[in-house]
């Protein structure tokens, strides 16, 4: 089993398609919706999918075949360790508990795998240590 985070981009007319149902039914994938935005010009869905690697790529191929934009999300934000002061401002801002204070060393730890790519830490880091990677 492996896990991947993917961003899906829909055109407005695709918003109502039952793609998540197909992913479960046909490709045997488990998923978590990390984020969903719907706007006039379409929608965006951030999914964490779990399944066999071949099934994940088949699922992605299916999505692309029906015209959904797919972008794999590896690292969305990165931390410049030389600028991070370990203040902890980002800790209470992060909605995904991806950032934690280590109460022994008082260092702030960032867990990339929990990140849902909201970008909130980027604008709230005073020394601008958190940066968008894309």
């Amino acid at each position, binding site marked *: 089993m492996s896990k991947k985070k993917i961003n899906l981009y829909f055109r407005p007319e695709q918003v109502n398609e039952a793609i998540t149902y197909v992913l479960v039914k046909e490709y045997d994938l488990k998923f978590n919706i990390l984020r969903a935005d719907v706007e006039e010009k379409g929608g965006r869905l951030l999914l964490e999918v779990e399944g066999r690697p071949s099934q994940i790529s088949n699922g992605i191929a299916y999505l692309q075949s029906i015209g959904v934009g797919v972008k794999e999300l590896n690292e969305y934000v990165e931390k410049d360790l030389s*600028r991070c*002061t*370990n*203040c*902890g*401002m*980002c*800790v*209470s*801002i992060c909605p995904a508990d991806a950032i934690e*204070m280590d*109460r022994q*060393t*008082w*260092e*702030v730890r960032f867990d990339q795998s929990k990140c849902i790519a909201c970008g*909130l830490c980027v*604008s*709230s880091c*005073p*020394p*601008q240590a958190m940066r968008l990677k894309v």
Partner: protein
Amino acid sequence: MKRTYEEINAKIQQGDAVVMTAEEAIKLAESKGIEKAAKEVDIVTTGTFGAMCSSGAFINFGHSEPPIRMKRVWLNGVPAYAGIAAVDAYIGATEEREDYGQPYGGAHVIEDLVAGKAVHLRATAAGTDCYPRKDIDTYISLRTVNQAYMYNPRNIYQNYGVATNSSERALFTYMGKLLPHYGNMTYSSAGQLSPLLKDPHLRTIGIGTRIFMGGGIGYVAWEGTQYKTTPRELNGVPVGSARSLALIGDLRGMSPEFVQALSFTGYGISLGIGIGVPIPILDEDIMRTAVLRDDQIFAPVLDYAIQSRGRKPIAEVSYAQLRSGTVELFGKKVQTSSLSSYYKARIIADRLKRMIEEKEFTLTRPVEQLPRERMQRALDVCSEEDVL
């Protein structure tokens, strides 16, 4: 038990001084008691690293050929105040560069100088008989200028209110982003490591006190602006912002590790500075305050949704609660975030300790004590007669 500054400095010179960080002294006092701890320890070191908006630097650029009496000055595009002598200027930390895509201000210029980088200088002038030149466009660095020293009118507040937000929308403040409906709480003191909380009535800290400043050495110049002694005390420590210090120190000798530009979205720019103050253990009383712990030091919680200088605290919390990560407020668990870095505060207290142990730093008796009583005044809109 009594100790004098002279005795402590003699011990430093002999390499015998016992120096501990405030955290170490707390542990010692817990195991052996205050009396024994006071006997054993000569100096307790403190530290803090946080946003200190009321900061800036005086720079003397040297005279050009032909000379100029600078009227308008920009450093990397950031306006500096030049309404003093010909080639003197003051670059304030919060001043911002205009028409620029990303946050860049006086604090960034100061950080760049400290990091040894070249800084672009542009100046214009009216031109006079003794200073004929009307403009100059050049580069400076700490290597080329005559003097470059920080003079910070208000640094290291003794304590500070904790910020939260009851309103429906996120607020962007100098206390960081405050999420709606008490979504988070931000604080900005190093608590048990913070200098002015360890000698709350400033018995040993006054004009002339030598301190660790931005990685180098600095001095207490004056009472800080908005210095006040009136807040209520708990365990002998003011609950909320009280005393502050005006500090002075040479940019040469400072390090970008402890001088860092900060920017707060929707608010503006500030300067993060690391400050450490040694507390001489002159007697047991001073040891008693030097070992106050996070659970004995309290701060008021203020609702930043109320946009008034008179907002009343909605709660009081200890630094132990704040540092635990969540605080209960109106039955709800609220996550906390610190704006000051406890990690760096520790490094500073430790660095200062080592500087003293290595005889690079001796203690100073204040030349003058700071005010024992001081009220803070407000600014009201009045007539000319009202203010007389």
